[in-house]
């Protein structure tokens, strides 16, 4: 990681655009498709002007027909291409679960290795304001249930670029979950092409008292919680799984073996999701032989409401995360009044979408 310190900074969105451009330039089989990828906004800038640079055959708008367009991507992959299919929102993947789960995830196996489906499915998640029940889901907890799918959830510009390059070069279906509140986040990104291995967790912050695992935008929120905890004498080890399928439980469990405490901050519902899987792995690994304390938090178990006061309760917050950490350490508490994190990506959001 130290080598990154010197590198130039890019936004998460620009890191994705750069990864795409580099791979498209390197490999003529890579192309981009999706609703609005060639429009004036270029999916938050991540596909901006690719159709101009590489021609309209390699970055094109599609009908609003998720099932079939996903099937088209699968078919193109069977013919040697490496499509990147972009969706504004993961909610819309519910329309192409059949192609993802029954077709893409199955082909390599059900044809005994006779087919490969190198597709990348990029899907946005996350709040801004008032997106409501149908535009606020994360659903990686559902997708990771299916053998044959890879699901990555990068939280930094560095991982965004590296995961996307790795996903493009992977010979299997890879779903990339991108939180909209990350697109403008800036961070060091090397200029060259590099792969972030799919299936390797990243220790974001080393610590010794408690392991906090956080996903996607919750990594940003958890870092804020760590700051709020600065004066509380709690040493937090923050782990970002980066990928939920495959899931690097080894790195997480190694951290938990050290700290004996785990707080999982999910960016999704927790029931039968990523946090359930990791807590189950803790139960399996320690078999109650050691006093390992665990807790998970995530989206409130309901659809997402639109009004801000309820939205604020629906999502884990830096203060809520910090408080949850402190509950592992009886006697220490957060002074809420003087502990409100700055969250510019949320407070500066002014709509409309």
């Amino acid at each position: 990681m130290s080598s990154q310190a010197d590198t130039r900074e890019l936004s998460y969105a620009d890191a994705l655009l750069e990864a795409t451009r580099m791979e498209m330039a390197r490999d003529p089989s890579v192309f981009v498709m999706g609703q609005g990828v060639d429009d004036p906004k270029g999916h938050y800038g991540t596909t901006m002007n690719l159709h101009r640079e590489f021609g309209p055959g390699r970055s094109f708008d599609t009908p609003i027909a998720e099932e079939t367009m996903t099937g088209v991507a699968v078919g193109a992959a069977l013919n040697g291409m490496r499509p990147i299919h972009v969706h504004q929102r993961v909610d819309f993947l519910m329309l192409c679960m059949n192609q993802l789960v029954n077709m893409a995830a199955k082909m390599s196996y059900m044809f005994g290795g006779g087919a490969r489906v190198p597709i990348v499915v990029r899907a946005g998640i996350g709040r801004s304001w008032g997106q409501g029940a149908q535009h606020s889901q994360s659903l990686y907890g559902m997708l990771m249930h299916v053998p044959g799918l890879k699901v990555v959830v990068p939280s930094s510009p560095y991982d965004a670029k590296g995961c996307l390059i790795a996903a493009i070069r992977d010979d299997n279906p890879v779903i990339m979950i991108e939180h909209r509140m990350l697109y403008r986040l800036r961070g060091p990104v090397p200029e060259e092409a590099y792969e972030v291995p799919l299936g390797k967790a990243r220790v974001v912050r080393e610590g010794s008292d408690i392991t906090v695992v956080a996903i996607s935008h919750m990594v940003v929120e958890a870092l804020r919680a760590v700051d709020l905890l600065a004066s509380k004498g709690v040493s937090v080890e923050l782990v970002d799984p980066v990928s939920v399928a495959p899931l690097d439980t080894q790195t997480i469990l190694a951290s938990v073996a050290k700290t004996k405490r785990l707080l999982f901050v999910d960016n999704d519902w927790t029931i039968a999701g990523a946090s359930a899987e990791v807590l189950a792995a803790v139960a399996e690994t320690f078999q109650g032989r050691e006093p390992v304390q665990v807790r998970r938090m995530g989206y409130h178990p309901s659809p997402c409401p639109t009004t801000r006061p309820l939205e604020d309760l629906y999502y884990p917050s830096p203060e809520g995360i910090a408080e949850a950490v402190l509950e592992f350490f009886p006697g220490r508490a957060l002074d809420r009044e003087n502990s409100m994190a700055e969250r510019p990506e949320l407070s500066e959001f002014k709509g409309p979408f």
Partner: protein
Amino acid sequence: MPTGNDGNLPDWPRLYHALYRIRAVEERIAEIYPSDLIKSPIHLSIGQEAVAVGVCEALSARDIVFGTYRGHAMYLAKGGDLKTMMAELYGKATGTGRGKSGSMHLMDNAAGVMGTSAIVGSHLSNAVGFALAEQLKGGDRVTAVFFGDGASDQGTFHESLNFASLKALPVLFVCENNDYAIFSDSAARMAGARLHEKARGYGIESDCIDSGEFTEILEAAEAAVASIRTGGGPRFLEIKTWRAMEHVGPSADDHLNYRPAEAIQTWSRRDPVQAAGSRLAPDQRAAIEAAVAEEIEAALSFAADSPFPAAEELGAHVFAS
């Protein structure tokens, strides 16, 4: 609220009231939006009002409508309550959905507004199912479903037309064809015949109105509703229209040059609200506009004065009970 048409000449004062009211509400929403009182995406129907009003004028109060995230016009035209709508946009406990709906999911059971969805195309089948139930129960309500040209890209559009025709269901398909899905024009998404022609392929009697003319829309809707009501099975209306503002948000976006200047001009000349207003005497028009302004300010006060939902509301209504 329009209460059905009796075959006489259009009642222009009433119709202008309906059209202007929607326009004025949405312009006021656009005005308020930058103040952040409305923290929810808004998809305005400015320019498209004639479709909602024309069709709802042909429906009776007991009839049912299903619509999209671009639903203010339909909601109001069908008689949805303005106060609870504004409270909903403000995220208040008195809103149509107690602050859980926002602009995209307005509903008013009493007015027959069965809800609006933000997943493109997904409500067509719900409307068809509602009509199926009506048929099974022997009821006489007509279900109308409003959707954009973009929704016809979805396979469910075809599946829904097919099933509605197969069972001769009392459903009116209303395609608000504004030629764009966000920035994507229909030529980039659709091959072959026009939508109303494709609908005919399912054996559904279909009409298209390309002019934007309110009376044409009204007449076509009345004929369609009358036929459906008397057991004629589903009907389809493709109504060309034009979205004056950006896809989502309070502003215009024609500076992005994604739509032909000529079409922009043509449709600006066809503005349905102006067209209706110009049929009235100036003082009559002014009186209507003043009444609407008053109603809007009252609704805004109601919204502003209402409380936000309490924290307990977060866990309520996950399941009906």
